[in-house]
């Protein structure tokens, strides 16, 4: 327990989290501080390329063993299973409409790449190793959740989906898979795997060395955006707010079990917990919005960005690490 408090403090007092807090405070104080649109997109692509390259190079190093295949299958399973839990909770406990429940569920089956990055930076700082293929797992989890979200909506409210004139499922999935961030993540993963350590010389000084500092700047931006979304939490109501904290805990628990079953290291297990616990706010919101026009998009954004993200990066990361060590 003592160790948990210590590591939680380490995490909270790391520059990355402090920049997040700075952004949050700036937003609350109504400062005009905001990163330009082009910079946000640019940094976002940079981070995806960076983590993809790193993961690919690790994969090249570790080799495509059976563990990698198993891990990717497990990631696909998480992406399908977590939305089912979320949907059940939202529909039967929260009494949300089918489309709203389905839309929110899809977010929790997918992943927040920035939470993943913050967790991996935390691991490096604390001296834990982790498996490179966790990044491949992250890539796998981008799309199944969207598919399951659409299936849930169609299955439980078949008339609704049709009448609403939402974009066809196939096109939604295609667009989600071809989202710029996803393409650059997967592409960089392959480039990293192909070029291996040899490529690190070329890309390292730009994509690896300054990585954590760039992440600080991005978390400054995330702080501003999260605070803005958090301000809407009254609109989402008490039940959904609670869901935004409960669901990551459930996701983390399932992720931890998955990591343990896969025989991963402590660091790797933490990252799988993050895959389970975090909710997407990049590709999935737009995808669900065009697929399920009658769902209220502010529910998902407020939950994923305003509640779950801050919870995960501040308390979640050290908590899940504590639990990962405990079960190992």
């Amino acid at each position, binding site marked *: 327990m003592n160790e948990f408090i210590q590591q939680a403090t380490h995490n909270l007092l790391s520059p990355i989290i402090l920049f997040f807090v700075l952004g949050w405070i700036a937003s609350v104080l109504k400062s005009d501080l*905001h990163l*330009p*649109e082009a910079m*946000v997109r640019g940094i*976002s692509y940079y981070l995806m390329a960076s983590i993809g390259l790193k993961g690919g190079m690790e994969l090249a190093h570790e080799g495509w063993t059976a563990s990698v295949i198993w891990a990717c299958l497990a990631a696909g399973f998480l992406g399908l299973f977590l939305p089912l839990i979320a949907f059940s909770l939202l529909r039967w406990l929260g009494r949300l409409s089918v489309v709203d429940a389905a839309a929110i569920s899809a977010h929790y089956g997918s992943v927040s790449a*920035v939470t993943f990055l913050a967790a991996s930076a935390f691991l490096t700082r604390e001296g834990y190793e982790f498996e490179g293929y966790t990044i491949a797992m992250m890539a796998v989890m981008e799309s199944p959740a969207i598919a399951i979200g659409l299936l849930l909506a169609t299955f439980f409210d078949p008339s609704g989906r049709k009448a*609403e*004139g939402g974009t066809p499922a196939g096109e939604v999935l295609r667009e989600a898979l071809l989202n710029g961030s996803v393409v650059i993540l997967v592409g960089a993963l392959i480039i990293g795997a192909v070029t291996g350590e040899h490529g690190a010389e070329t890309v390292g000084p730009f994509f690896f060395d300054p990585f954590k500092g760039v992440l600080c700047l991005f978390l400054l*931006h*995330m702080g501003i*955006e999260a605070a803005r979304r958090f301000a809407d939490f009254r609109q989402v109501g008490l039940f959904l707010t609670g869901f935004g904290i409960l669901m990551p805990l459930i996701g983390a628990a399932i992720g931890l079990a998955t990591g343990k079953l896969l025989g991963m290291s402590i660091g790797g297990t933490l990252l799988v917990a993050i895959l389970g616990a975090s909710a997407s*706010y*990049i590709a999935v*919101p*737009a995808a669900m*919005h*065009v697929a399920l*026009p*009658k769902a209220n*998009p*502010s529910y998902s*954004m407020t939950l994923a*960005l305003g509640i779950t993200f801050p919870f995960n990066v501040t308390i979640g990361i050290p908590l899940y690490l504590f639990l990962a060590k405990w079960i190992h």
Partner: protein
Amino acid sequence: MPYDPKRMKKVEIVIEAVKLQQVLKIIDQAGASGYTVHESVTGRGHRGYRRGGGVSDLYANAMIITLVDENAAVRIAEEVRDLIQDYAGVMMISDVDVVWPDYDQDQ
């Protein structure tokens, strides 16, 4: 060249960014000769304050201008009206005198 404009309808549409492509398709199908797009505007309306530039495109708006004849304007209006029933947007139509080059002369 003498001043000899053509009276047309100027249709202006504010629409959320994720639906921009669909509106452009509607415009094309109505037979418009073209369109001009402001890819990033901000705004407030019935669906609250909207501003892009974040990690998601969800809150971004675009604005489209298209010069068409009256028939096309009506057709676009009807389809866009259905669309903005579910998505953030507004549409306005006015009269303008349009100056076109003489497309038969070359090109």
